[in-house]
């Protein structure tokens, strides 16, 4: 019981420090601004549509700009988490933490939870902007906004856990960032490739090509499971479709993915060590 209390205590202390650093830094606000700026283009397109056609019929108009805002916020979370451990390892501060009552689980959980808190702060700023935009244009709020934000937390969690794992693998910030860009680019590319394959009609292909495409499609399906992007896009689809089952499925899938990645991160960090290289 004591260990649990001490661990919680350590986690709390580290979260407080990390959150403070985020709150007083500029990264979080820049991410929120980019998210809002991107969303502004969507709002602008709505106003232009209504102006041009005199009418626009849409369910949950805030969903579309919110999707883009969530993508930006989730990317910020992923980038931030992908350097979280490597940055401290590179500077030696991670080792110093381990002089004290900090173990692998507590440091990883603390970093993860702080990422979620940062994400929530970004979403809070984004929400304030959305309130302003919705009120000044009279687009109005709907309950699906809250559903999307709630689901987005799970999506951010999977992005964060993935980023933390990458960060545990590497020892230098530069390597972390390069690896992150490479892997994310790879996952995005695979996603596009899979979507392209789905558009191909079997009747247009020879038998051998059909076989190759089938094998590739199956490989991609497996790899997609490992990509946090797929949870992000599936979650967005779930809200767009208004499908409760898909929504819950995505939430549970993200949760399972997050837990798995966090456990993997603990073992990876143990294997790699916490000492400054």
């Amino acid at each position, binding site marked *: 019981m*004591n*260990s649990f209390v001490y661990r919680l205590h350590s986690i709390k202390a580290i979260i407080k*420090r990390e959150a403070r650093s985020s709150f007083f830094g500029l990264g979080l606000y820049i991410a929120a601004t980019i998210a809002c700026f991107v969303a502004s283009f969507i709002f602008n397109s709505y106003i232009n549509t209504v102006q041009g056609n005199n009418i626009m019929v849409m369910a949950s108009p805030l969903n579309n700009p919110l999707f883009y805002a969530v993508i930006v916020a989730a990317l910020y979370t992923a980038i931030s988490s992908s350097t979280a451990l490597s940055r401290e390892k590179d500077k030696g501060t991670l080792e110093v933490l381990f002089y004290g*009552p*900090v173990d692998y689980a507590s440091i990883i959980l603390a970093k993860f939870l702080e990422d979620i808190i940062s994400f929530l702060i970004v979403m809070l700023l984004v929400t304030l902007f959305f309130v302003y935009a919705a009120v000044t244009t009279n687009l109005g709020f709907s309950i699906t906004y809250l559903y999307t934000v709630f689901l987005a937390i799970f999506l951010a969690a999977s992005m964060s856990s993935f980023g933390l794992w990458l960060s545990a693998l590497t020892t230098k910030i530069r390597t972390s960032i390069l690896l992150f860009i490479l892997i994310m680019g790879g996952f995005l590319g695979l996603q596009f490739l899979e979507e392209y394959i789905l558009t191909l009609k079997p009747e247009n292909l020879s038998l051998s090509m059909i076989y190759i495409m089938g094998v590739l499609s199956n490989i991609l399906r497996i790899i997609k499971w490992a990509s946090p992007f797929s949870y992000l896009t599936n979650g967005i689809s779930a809200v767009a479709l208004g499908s409760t089952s898909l929504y819950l499925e995505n939430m549970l899938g993200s949760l399972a993915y997050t837990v798995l990645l966090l456990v993997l991160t603990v073992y990876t960090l143990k294997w790699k060590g916490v*000492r400054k290289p």
Partner: protein
Amino acid sequence: MIRTEHLYKKYESIEAVKDLNLSVEPGEIYGFLGPNGAGKTTTIMMILGIIKPTRGKILIFDKDLYSDYFGIKRKIGVVSETQYLYEDMTAYEYLSFFCDLYGVENKEKKIEELLHRVNLYERKDDLLGHYSRGMQQKIGFVRALLMDPQLLILDEPVSGLDPTGIREIRDLILEENKLGRTVFMSSHILSEVERISHRVGILNKGMLVAEDTMDNIKKKLSSEVEIELEVEDFDVESQKRLEGLPFVNSLTKEDGKFLVRVKADKDYRNELVNFISSSGAHLKEIKRREMSLEEAFLTITEKNISLFSKEEAGE
């Protein structure tokens, strides 16, 4: 306080630490010495649980670290050779964070008290990135003392400091030891270790080759003791007779003083005083010249000597 049993660490084909059996007693200052690459830092990291041993046991406060990981860690203060600090934090914020981490009560009072002790209170709101090396080292010390640790583990605590800084740290260590804290200190500055340590352990090529008080180590290494005499009216015949004494190995003159090498089995200063006075000479000063720790250290490491008997070594 700390005890290792057959501690062993191997990296691929390199044996960093071999069969290490050291013990640090409560309340003592233990100097941990060894040349570069001997395995000192590896040993400290294993004690702290940052590196996992290949095999062997480590007991801290008579307990295995992992039986009470958080409880034990909360009682240990660590100062490393290089201070890795959060440069975007002020000294106060940094120490406040570690107070939170260790669960220190009345943290404001504690931080204030310790910063005053190291004369850094006026700079508490400066960013750590603006601190000099000496100041950073002091902050490291303050961090290690926040939680009133029972055990202080210091890895090269005075490395890179000027003489004033070294003195301040030395005083701090002695003060803390007087308060009952056990100090486990690894250092290259042998004179400092010699000055403040109750016992030393010497590590060479991953093996503990000596663990004892300095006097005992030196005694074990040397079969004779040098005694320096400043004598007036000491005629040649008396010198010859002195040289012929059974416990005297040799007599030389150096810079106007006589250097007598006697057997190390006991202290022969009384015998020498009696002889000189009986010879009619006038003894102005008698001084025992001991082997320094540096000389002992170099002797052990360069000649790869182990001062443990076969039984002590566990053979």
